[in-house]
């Protein structure tokens, strides 16, 4: 169990956050009435791997926050509902149950798919804070449709839309800097049949020409999928300079690489999110070397997050994915600080207090282990650096990483400000 002294002494990862919370709490111990915090996560079903990491992130953050005195002396008590295979009906019912049974003033989620952002309506109807990492532009659109109603809804990271221009900018930079000589200007885009994947693919497709690329193939695959033979046959028919796979399940992406490498083409392979998870390397093994991926949210491999990463793996095992747990970890910390600044978390239907917490969340620029969260008022999502904003201290980094050795963690190769390694040509490239 972490105690207050050890927390403040030993946790570089928490940095100012713990100090700030402890300072607000003064000498308060987390001994008051618990503050129930809800979370609706996919703990079983196909996204269980991520759901479990989201729960881990919440547990670690709650433990640290409570060690720092909780929120104004009141400890956080987590209540988690399983959203299984997700979908609007299951997720909204889970959130409503959390509010009805436990009177949670805030829901801190990871992601849930297939909800059409209907969670925002549940949060709005009950006047609770709702933080999530669905990474969807539809959050922004819904928020903008009625900011008064959705005042308490926050997306903890930039929406998926920024993957599109961010990826094209990255590829163009590789060419311009001479790190990659593209054999042609063709790109193939392979989304899967889900909103997240399709929005990214469409964003790439819509802006490809602006960055000097032509889309030679746009092939939507089922979700989930692991038989890539027909898609690979099309790719080999007209080899593009880059293959952009916006499907995101790690096991399926690993299979893509295993099957691609039986007859590789001289194409860069860029993938979405999945390669950030340990399962991608574990399943694909050496076949993953050379793969590039990016994420608009993920624990940075820097000194600031070292303490968090170490603590996470000590607590949840060497195979745990701190890069996923970091999302809810930062989300809960940001909320706790904001609630403390606002003078307390409030409770459902206490709009006056919940609005104060929401206002504090909008004002507080929070440097977490994923980088900087600053709320974009035009959509209430995180700002994206560098595609949306040029100042790294005011936006969450859109990180580009490359698997260069499957036995170690992937290397951060962009953006330049955070990069720890240089891009290398994939091993399947033939001279």
């Amino acid at each position, binding site marked *: 169990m972490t105690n207050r002294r050890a927390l403040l002494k030993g946790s570089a990862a928490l940095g100012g956050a713990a100090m700030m919370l402890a300072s607000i709490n003064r000498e308060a111990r987390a001994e008051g009435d618990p503050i129930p915090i809800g979370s609706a996560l996919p*703990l*079983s*079903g*196909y*996204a*269980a*791997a*991520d*759901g*479990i990491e989201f729960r881990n992130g919440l547990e670690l953050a709650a433990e640290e926050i409570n060690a720092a005195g909780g929120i104004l002396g009141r400890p956080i008590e987590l209540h988690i509902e399983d959203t299984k295979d997700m979908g609007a009906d299951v997720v909204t019912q889970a959130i409503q149950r959390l509010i009805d049974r436990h009177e949670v003033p805030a829901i801190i989620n990871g992601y849930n798919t297939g909800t059409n952002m209907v969670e925002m309506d549940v949060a709005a109807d009950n006047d609770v804070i709702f933080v999530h990492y669905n990474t969807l532009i539809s959050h922004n659109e819904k928020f903008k449709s009625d900011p008064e109603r959705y005042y308490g809804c926050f997306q903890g990271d930039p929406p998926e839309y920024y993957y599109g221009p961010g990826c094209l900018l990255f590829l163009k930079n590789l060419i311009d800097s001479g790190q990659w000589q593209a054999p042609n200007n063709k790109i193939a885009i392979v989304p899967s*049949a889900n909103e997240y994947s399709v929005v990214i693919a469409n964003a790439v497709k819509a802006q490809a020409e602006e960055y000097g690329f032509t889309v030679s193939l746009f*092939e*939507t*695959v*089922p979700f*989930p*999928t*692991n*038989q*890539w*033979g*027909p*898609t*690979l*046959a*099309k790719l*080999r*028919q007209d080899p593009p300079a880059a293959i952009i796979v916006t499907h995101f399940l*790690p*096991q399926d992406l*690993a*299979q893509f690489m295993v*099957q691609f490498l*039986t*007859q590789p083409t001289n194409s860069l392979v860029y993938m979405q999110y999945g390669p950030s*998870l*340990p*399962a991608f390397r*574990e*399943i*694909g*093994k050496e076949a993953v070397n050379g793969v590039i991926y990016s994420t608009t949210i993920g624990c940075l491999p820097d000194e600031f997050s070292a303490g968090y990463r170490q603590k996470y793996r000590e607590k949840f095992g060497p*195979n745990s*994915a701190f890069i996923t747990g970091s999302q809810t970890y930062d989300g809960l910390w940001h909320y706790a600080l904001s609630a403390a600044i606002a003078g307390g978390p409030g409770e459902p239907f206490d709009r006056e207090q919940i609005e104060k917490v929401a206002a504090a969340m909008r004002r507080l620029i929070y440097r977490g282990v994923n980088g900087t969260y600053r709320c974009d008022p035009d959509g209430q999502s995180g700002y994206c650096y560098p595609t949306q904003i040029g100042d790294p201290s005011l936006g969450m980094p859109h990180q580009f990483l490359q698997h260069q050795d499957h036995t170690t963690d992937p290397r951060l190769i962009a953006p330049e400000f955070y990069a720890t390694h240089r891009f290398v040509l994939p091993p399947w490239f033939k001279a």
Partner: protein
Amino acid sequence: MEILGPVLVAGITTGALYALATIGLSLVWGALGMLNMAHGALLTIGGYAAFTLATLLGAPWPVAVLAPVAVGALIGAAIYLLVAQPLLARAPRSFETNVIIATFGVAIALENAVLLIFGGQPFGQSIALPGHLQAGGIFVPWQNVLIVAVVLVLMAATAFFLARTRAGRAIRATAQHREAAQLLGVPVGRVYLQVLALSGGIAGTCGLLVSSITQLSPTLGADPMLKAFIMCVVAGLGNLPGAIGAAFVLALIEAFASYGLGARWGFPLLLAIVILVLIWRPDGLFGRAAVRRL
């Protein structure tokens, strides 16, 4: 051919796996009139059983590949003794409906047990052949060759068992007419136990093979289970040879439709064919109403 080769390989491999998943489901359906909704979970457990022995316990591969057979057979037998047999004994008239719900519950319990024990992160199956065969510009991974070979052997062995052995004849007799078989001295209870154990063993092996070209996850068996169900319905409930044929044909159609029409159209086309077949022949291509044959 260089381009279409991978499509053909994908179609045949998938067809082989569908066929193997279908055998177990169709056997139980044909013999007991029981739709075993836990069949997919048995696939999952088979994959994890091999993984546990080979990767976690370091057992040699000949031992590890037998684990899915043994574990699948044991759980199959347990499903009969603990679920199917009591339901059949107490409410034989509503058995076919009740057992669907009951085995659905078993499936959820088994999947969640896997989730609790192994966690949600997917794993790679360590028992797999590396490398590939190159023939006429077509690259065929050795693992795919192995899968097709194992499936063909298992299909032949199952056919031999059903056609030429005493136990197999008892299963077929029970499938054709339970009461008549019982009057002729066939121990129906034991036959059912054998069928579920055999089906479980085949499902376990199928799980190992599926995981060798995909991954291990608690939902590993869900897709093969769905496809096996479709094949059984298309062929006619309980018609084993028909189901195997349907598995290969539909898998090839799915693969070539994915290539020709786009990857997302493969499965919808498959379902469209199923609907058309059922409109044309409501009891399936080879099915006969109220008659079960193995």
